[in-house]
């Protein structure tokens, strides 16, 4: 969307001021977090009672008049004391490195910088901004919002030197604030959201790590990419970037992607190097969008766990709030117990609910076309992200509670796992579908355990007759063996 300067109506009350000045109030990070109480406030701007917004707009350099501020509407000395008033803060910025992508990054700092101002409290963001100016600031000699604008612009230029020119338009005239919010700012916010939401792994140079959970899962490293939000559901790539900017040595650090090794599985040299380092060598490779091959580790915080069901050659998902056993006979907590701890466990994968929204959702293993079961509650939550041609073919507890029921359901609806899954990402056929009726029977008889089959998902992995997962199992042999041995023993007893 094209960025244009706002045309201030001719007839409104306005004043302008250009150039630097000295301020009667202190400016220091010391004042960050200062809360202005109702009784100590001179005026409130925006907030729960009045309209308000903040916006940074990138413009061509010739359109920006450096260090100029225009105030439209009443100034501080004309605003009724003790009351809330409308407030808009618009900044035009220019610089050779500045484009609209940087707008939100710069805008975010308005919060930080304004809180450096003594006696000025800034809360929230965008159209939720809530400002209070303290009586103490007025007492010190604060007279005009143009002083606030200039102090903020000065901080912007000092702290973000790539801003070559900056100009401010502050508005306290309610009707105009409302109109501009609706017609000017909202479309820009929406456009930004849409852009971020359509951002993919290939569009960025860095992912972010999270090591907050290492206190109880020391080898765990979460990697957060645009297409893979954190498995605890709390952190998106955008959040990771914000945190890493504030504290580069903190729990969220930038992970340069490096070379792309596997575009479908989502494997990068940078991520692998980082994983080796952070896990103490425990984990050497990570594929972000793969279920079977070098899956992402899980610290136990995941919101949802995925489990492979060899009997149907498909994947099921169950969320933390679902208390019943899944068709594999296991509950969320039982599976979580096996999967947590920061190890790569093939056959299980912990994810955040928001990963279901991803365009790359386990794309190496067929994405949604490999999904056969999930609780109804979870399915409803993510329904709008499931492709239309598969949504009705994914069973819930209302369709199937056991493997046998699930098999029957999948066959009835002609789920792709029955005839073979073609993964959409490259149209490759990745499973062969179920083996013929007769063979299945043989296998069943041979194992003589059709009744217990539902509670032995892992035992199935090792001797699964399905050819479709041949490729996968090769690479993951060791892990599968480990699980199998333990499970089988238990059941034999």
């Amino acid at each position, binding site marked *: 969307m094209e960025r244009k300067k706002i045309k201030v109506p001719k007839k409104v009350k306005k004043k302008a001021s250009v150039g630097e000045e000295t301020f009667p109030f202190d400016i220091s990070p010391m004042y960050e977090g200062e809360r202005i109480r109702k009784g100590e406030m001179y005026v409130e701007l925006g907030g729960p009672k009045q309209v308000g917004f903040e916006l940074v707009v990138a413009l061509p350099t010739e359109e920006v008049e450096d260090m100029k501020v225009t105030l439209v509407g009443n100034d501080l000395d004309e605003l009724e004391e003790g009351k809330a008033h409308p407030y808009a803060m618009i900044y035009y910025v220019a610089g050779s490195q500045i484009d609209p992508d940087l707008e939100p990054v710069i805008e975010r700092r308005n919060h930080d910088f304004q809180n450096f101002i003594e006696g000025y409290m800034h809360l929230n963001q965008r159209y939720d901004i*809530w400002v209070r100016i303290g009586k103490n600031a007025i007492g010190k000699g604060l007279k005009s919002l143009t002083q606030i604008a200039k102090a903020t612009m000065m901080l912007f230029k000092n702290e973000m030197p790539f801003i070559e020119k900056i100009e401010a338009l502050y508005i306290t005239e309610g009707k105009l604030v409302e109109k501009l919010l609706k017609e000017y700012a909202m479309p820009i916010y929406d456009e930004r*959201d849409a852009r971020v939401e359509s951002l993919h792994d290939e569009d960025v140079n860095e992912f972010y790590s999270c090591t907050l959970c290492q206190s109880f899962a020391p080898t765990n490293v979460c990697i957060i990419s645009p297409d893979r939000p954190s498995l*605890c*559901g709390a952190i998106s790539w955008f959040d990771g970037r*914000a945190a890493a900017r504030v504290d580069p040595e903190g729990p969220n650090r930038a992970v340069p992607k490096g070379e792309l090794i596997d575009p479908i599985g989502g494997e990068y040299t940078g991520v692998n190097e980082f994983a080796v380092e952070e896990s103490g060598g425990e984990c050497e490779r990570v594929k972000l969008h793969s279920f079977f091959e070098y899956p992402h580790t899980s610290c136990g915080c995941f919101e949802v766990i995925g489990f492979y069901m060899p009997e149907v050659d498909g994947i099921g998902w169950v969320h933390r709030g679902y208390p019943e056993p899944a068709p594999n006979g296991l509950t969320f907590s039982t599976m979580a117990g096996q999967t947590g701890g920061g190890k790569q466990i093939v056959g299980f994968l912990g994810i955040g609910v928001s990963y279901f929204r991803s365009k790359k959702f386990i794309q190496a293993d067929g994405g949604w076309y490999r999904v056969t079961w999930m609780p109804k509650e979870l399915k409803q939550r993510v329904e709008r992200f499931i492709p239309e041609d598969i949504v009705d073919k994914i069973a819930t507890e209302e369709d199937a509670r056991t493997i046998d029921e699930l098999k029957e359901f999948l066959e009835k609806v002609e789920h792709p796992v029955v005839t073979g899954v073609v993964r959409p990402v490259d149209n490759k056929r990745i499973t062969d579908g179920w083996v013929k009726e007769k063979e299945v029977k043989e296998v069943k008889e041979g194992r003589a355990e059709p009744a217990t089959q539902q509670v032995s998902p892992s035992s199935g992995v090792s001797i699964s007759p399905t050819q479709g997962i041949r490729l996968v199992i090769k690479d993951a042999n060791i892990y599968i063996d480990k699980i199998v041995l333990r499970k089988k023993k238990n059941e034999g007893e």
Partner: protein
Amino acid sequence: MSKKYRVLAVDADPDSNLADALGIEGYRTIGQIRELFQHGRDEMRTINKESWIEGKIYGEVVFEVDDFDLLVMGRPEGEGCYCFVNNMLRAVLRKLMRHYDIVIVDCEAGLEHFSRKTIPEADTIIVVTDASRKGFKTAVRIRELVTELGIKAGIYLIANRIGEGDEGTVAELAGKENFKLLDTLPYDEDVAKADLEGLPVPLNSKVAKRIEKLAEVLICEAKS
């Protein structure tokens, strides 16, 4: 006291009753905000989550009473992962608390918020006990916990609801356990009566006046 200083009272007992004792209603708790976050975060799009949390705390949790602010921590977390939200809470609370002259925290004996570092530190820890052996045992346990958590704070004991004639025993017990006994407060009819009537602790009661004096002493000490 709160007339002279900026005071933040924190109710960190999950079974919140500080607010009741102070006669305050209509607040939201940190726990409620934490749950709101956990349920709403998937729909937050590109907003800055830390700033969201900060806005909620500053706007809805910090409760302005006449001459001090109150913050109620609320119930402990439910199921799921709270690492990220707690990390943000820590950052926001640290920033908030440093702007008060005095932050007074009412804890349960387990000191959960200190072990989780949602409350970062303390200058002084006051353990209130009655004359019972059980009370003293708890006091000793709290002191051990404080050492374990690496909190560098002066620990003091206040004996409360002490019947006439028991002062000696209390002093003796405190001495044996090596506690600095700050004061021995009597049973106060006015306090008990107010409690029965569902009223806050009367500020003109004997006990309240004694506590006010104690507070002045402690503040002087912390400042020096």
